């Protein structure tokens, strides 16, 4: 049944487009763009303006109801998290097992501070953890957007199910705009099979205005978003 429909739909499309077909061979014909050299150029531009980008990124985050914590050192990350633990009365946390977070040994330090680690393997338990901690793969300065790629160490639900999401951004994660981001992503897309099952853009905490256009935060996703910017 479905197979017949496939042929039928394609047939109707082709019939409808008869005489239009001048674009033969134009499909995906932008091969003259060299994303490797474009990406090099983009990285150069980003490096030239990094400190301005950090400021712009922080400003944009604040505009979308995000709490920004700017810190100078890895030690300060831990301290601000402990401050948050007290302020929000956090009891448990879930966290990515990604490389940078391992390097700074955050998981162990939070456990030592008395927070209970919740494994990301169980959706019900992760939904009941008080905070989800991630880093980011990229951060878009001109929109205040966090870009998270899913892989075996970076489960999707850590930034989604707990009521608070905290993300750590390093200067090297920053790109100027979404155009930069896709140039970089495309330059790394050697093999279609390598693409992540899920990339997520996050710009501020979950929001709705469905009741009389009144802005309400935390309708489904995290109610609060904290972004730690390392500088």
């Amino acid at each position, binding site marked *: 049944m479905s197979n017949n429909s496939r042929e039928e739909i394609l047939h109707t499309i082709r019939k409808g*487009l008869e005489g239009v077909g001048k674009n033969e061979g134009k*499909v*995906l014909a*932008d091969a003259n763009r060299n994303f490797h050299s474009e990406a090099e150029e983009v990285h150069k531009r980003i490096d030239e303006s990094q400190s301005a980008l950090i400021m712009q990124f922080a400003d944009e985050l604040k505009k979308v109801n995000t709490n920004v914590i700017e810190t100078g050192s890895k030690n300060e990350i831990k301290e601000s998290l402990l401050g948050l633990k007290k302020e929000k009365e956090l009891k448990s946390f879930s966290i990515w097992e990604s490389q940078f977070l391992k390097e700074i040994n955050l998981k162990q330090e939070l456990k030592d501070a008395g927070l209970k680690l919740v494994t*990301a393997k169980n959706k019900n338990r992760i939904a009941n953890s008080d905070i989800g901690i991630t880093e980011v793969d990229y951060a878009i300065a001109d929109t205040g957007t966090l870009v998270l790629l899913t892989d075996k160490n970076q489960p999707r639900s850590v930034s989604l199910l707990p009521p608070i999401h905290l993300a750590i951004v390093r200067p090297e994660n920053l790109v100027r705009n979404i155009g930069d981001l896709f140039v970089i992503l495309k330059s790394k897309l050697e093999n279609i099979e390598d693409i992540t*099952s899920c990339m997520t853009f996050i*710009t501020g905490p979950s929001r709705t205005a469905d009741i009389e256009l009144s802005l309400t935060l935390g*309708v489904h*996703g995290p109610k609060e978003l904290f972004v730690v910017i390392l500088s």
Partner: protein
Amino acid sequence: MGFEEVRFEQDSEKAIHNKPLQKALVNVTNRFRTARNKASEDVPNWDNLRAAAREIKKETIENLDKYLLMLEERVKRAGGKVHWAKDAEEASQIIVNIAREGNVKSVVKSKSMATEEIELNNSFEDAGIKVIETDLGEYIIQLAGEHPSHIIAPAIHKTKEDISKLFSAKLGIPRYDKPEELTKVAREILRSEFLNADMGVSGANFAVAETGTIVVVENEGNARLTTTVPKIHVALVGIEKLIPRYEDLSLFLTVLARSATGQKSSTYVSFITGPKRSTDIGGPEEFHLVLLDNGRSKILASEETRESLYCIRCGACLNNCPVYRKVGGHSYGWVYSGPIGAIITPQLMGIDKAPELPFASSLCGACKDVCPVKIDFPKILLELRKNVVESKKGSTGIGERFGIRLWRFTVEHESIYKITNKLSYYFQLPWKGRNGKLNSLPYPFSRWTDQRDFPAVAKKTFRERWKNNKGETG
């Protein structure tokens, strides 16, 4: 959403007299309009972006067969399954079958116009499968047993008092009156639905042929939950939602968010390629892409109206349409409202089912000016009007044709034109009201004056004034 026949005249009459609706319409359309205008002015080369987006959509639609096959191949390579549905019934059947095979008891849905189009909820209910809308606006609408009235803000026709009463009656909870409290109630109920659901159904804002990625844009996070938590994810996607290349997304996401709500970026954008990989923790084990035709492929045959398929469903044309702003979404009789509804409903459902819609426009072109892909609405509306008239379902009767002939005869003869001009001043006098305007003309002109006044014919004609003033203004 049940579809029999559009009754625009009847339904818009009701809408115009519905005071809370009128207030809500002003609020929502003004809010979105202002935000969109500001957001588009912030981008220095906004019109170039629109032109580029249009160019890419044109390329996509004119090569749709090739891009669909590419998308199919890439989704399969990523481990997903692809289904083709020629109409609403087949699409519902495919999705219900996926649910049956997966032994699904309950389904969570994120907002999708395509699922509204195929009335998917009815099919699930008929099959004894529980289905819950999770977008807050859609959840409210589902509880009330109604239909969305705006693409972006589906429950905008309801006041918070309406919603408070509804929640209390349907959910057996005390009355809460603040939007934050009502939102919190919905969050708690829906969160447990998410955690218990076996299947999530989403739509998509874009499907990228090159990578097999579907893109879902939202603010609430319910689409992330729908596509992440249940073990099966089904995406129902109209075949016109394709874009060719991965990097095209940077352009389309920029124009979509700004055109829809005036945000620089929507809160969440999910880029989903296939099911979870074997090493991923969490994410759906099965991913199904259902490609929906339901009349779209037929539109391709008309060169004049083909560009109706460029639409990215931002809703900007609704917010800027003087007709939508008065009559609201329900008057358009089906899931798509405003100018985009006026052009695609007759084309998808058949012009004989919605002959009034191409006429539900003043042809002012505000829709075209704000459209992020520059769809030429007035041109398409005129083409469809022509089709309506030719199919003899239209509003031109003997009277209208006679009237036009009479008009033509008059303007072709100068002396008659002059006399008619002069006489019309005296003929109108019995209907002239105190405000100096015509406020109750006999049928068929009463169709105008029932709702508003008609300016009176001046005593001196333009030609006389011109002569007196010797061509000077004043």
